[in-house]
């Protein structure tokens, strides 16, 4: 698949990279077998092993604050030089009142900053990252913070309840010469596809059942990835790692295989089996797990997916600054290993599941 009518990959005027990154995964885990025990019997085929669940006092704002603190610890940048705080999520604590101002205040980035919340289902976080690349790449700012974070909710008993999880990541974008990962190019691919939605006053989302696969996830992820590879004049073999959006364990593995990626290229960033689908956080937290282990010179392909529907693709090259940055904050793996299993009753209490419609 090629870019049409002479349209090329997106590159900023001034080279941009990731100067700091940080993950957050809450402590609690709900095994998929526990959801099956309550709703469909023990023999059900399970889409993941277990998912991360936020504690009672956690929400997208608090989790974003911790991920952003980790990103700033790695970047070592004066918070006052960050001129944008953009939080992508479909679980903002308020319908009206930005999450981003809470995050900006907690990190002492206020008052001379942009602050806005982004929405595009599971790609709200990478949407914010595209904008942050442009903000730095245009020279309007030296640093811009983009976050993808969710405390995702599934209707009790719905297929999504196995996987809808909590977690995400923060990416601080800055000048390429200070970066631990250079943004080589990016691309966004979007169509109007009604695979998943939630109306303004509905508590839980609805989805188009089987429609979520081929025309939605696979079409957008594979199109964006193939165009990125062709635009860069590369094949899957030119990348050390690939991270695709992860609504479950199977979809990203099947898409990666179709794109020509081997298991070794995707397993580092494949977190859905052990933390679930963190929605706007999904592809970005996969990227943090890769950055925790990457070495200078490695190339990384990241492709998000958001229902509605679209994908953002990023081609990254790791720089020499990665090695010192890796140990300046908790790794994604360390967060994942901090694990307390809960049962369905505790889960129902933590997530306010007594509401059934």
């Amino acid at each position, binding site marked *: 698949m090629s870019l049409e009518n002479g349209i090329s990959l997106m590159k900023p005027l001034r080279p941009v990279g990731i100067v700091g990154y940080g993950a957050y995964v809450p402590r609690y885990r709900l095994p998929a077998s526990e959801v099956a025990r309550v709703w469909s019997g023990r023999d059900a085929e399970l889409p993941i092993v277990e998912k991360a669940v936020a504690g009672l*006092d956690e929400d997208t704002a608090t989790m974003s604050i911790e991920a952003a603190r980790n990103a700033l610890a790695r970047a070592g940048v004066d918070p006052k030089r960050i001129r944008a705080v953009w939080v992508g999520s479909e679980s903002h604590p308020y319908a009206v009142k930005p999450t981003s101002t809470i995050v900006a205040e907690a990190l002492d980035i206020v008052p001379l900053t942009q602050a806005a919340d982004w929405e595009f289902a599971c790609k709200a976080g990478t949407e914010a990252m595209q904008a942050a690349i442009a903000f730095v790449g245009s020279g309007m700012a030296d640093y811009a913070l983009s976050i993808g974070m969710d405390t995702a909710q599934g209707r009790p008993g719905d297929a999504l309840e196995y996987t809808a999880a909590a977690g995400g990541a923060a990416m601080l974008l800055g000048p390429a010469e200070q970066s631990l990962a250079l943004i080589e190019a990016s691309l966004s691919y979007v169509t109007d596809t009604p695979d998943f939605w939630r109306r303004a006053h509905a508590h839980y989302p609805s989805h188009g059942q089987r429609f979520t696969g081929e025309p939605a996830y696979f079409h957008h992820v594979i199109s964006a990835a193939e165009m990125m590879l062709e635009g860069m004049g590369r094949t899957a073999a030119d990348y050390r790692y690939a991270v695709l959006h992860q609504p479950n364990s199977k979809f990203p593995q099947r898409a990666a295989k179709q794109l020509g990626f081997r298991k070794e290229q995707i397993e580092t960033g494949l977190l859905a089996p052990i933390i679930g689908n963190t929605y706007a956080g999904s592809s970005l937290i996969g990227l943090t797990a890769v950055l925790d282990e990457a070495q200078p010179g490695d190339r990384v392909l990241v492709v998000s997916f958001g229902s509605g529907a679209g994908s953002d693709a990023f081609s990254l090259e790791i720089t020499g600054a990665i090695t010192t940055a890796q140990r300046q904050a908790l790794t994604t793996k360390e967060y994942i290993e901090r694990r307390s299993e809960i049962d369905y009753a505790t889960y129902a209490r933590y997530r306010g599941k007594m509401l059934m419609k």
Partner: protein
Amino acid sequence: MSVARTWRTRRQRYSLVGERCEYCHNAIFPPRDVCPHCAEPAQKEYTMSGRGTVYSYTTVFDPPAGFEAYAPYPVALVKLDEGPMVTAQLTDLDPDDVRIGMPVEMVTRKLSEQGDEGVITYSYKFRERLERQAVAA
């Protein structure tokens, strides 16, 4: 907590912004007009590291209004590494897991909610300190 008071105290609540006395050099939290150690006025803003240890603790079973959803929860006197003693909720642990001398670190969490329609108050709490693994040689 009123919306106005929530707003006025947000910096100390979100990230333990206190002061350090320019005369006796003691760290001060929460911030105040006069140094409690030497009674000198006009202090310099200082953000605490967020690291400390549990000095003593109790478990709240019968919480005040706005905190019902979280009960039972542990509350501790935390001695910050910089010196000040802070009363705060402990989080991410069961009440049985708390012990005196436990190393803790500050996190920003939901403190209370004024029902489904009111403002959410965020504040510092403390969790057992998560140690980074030693760097592989």
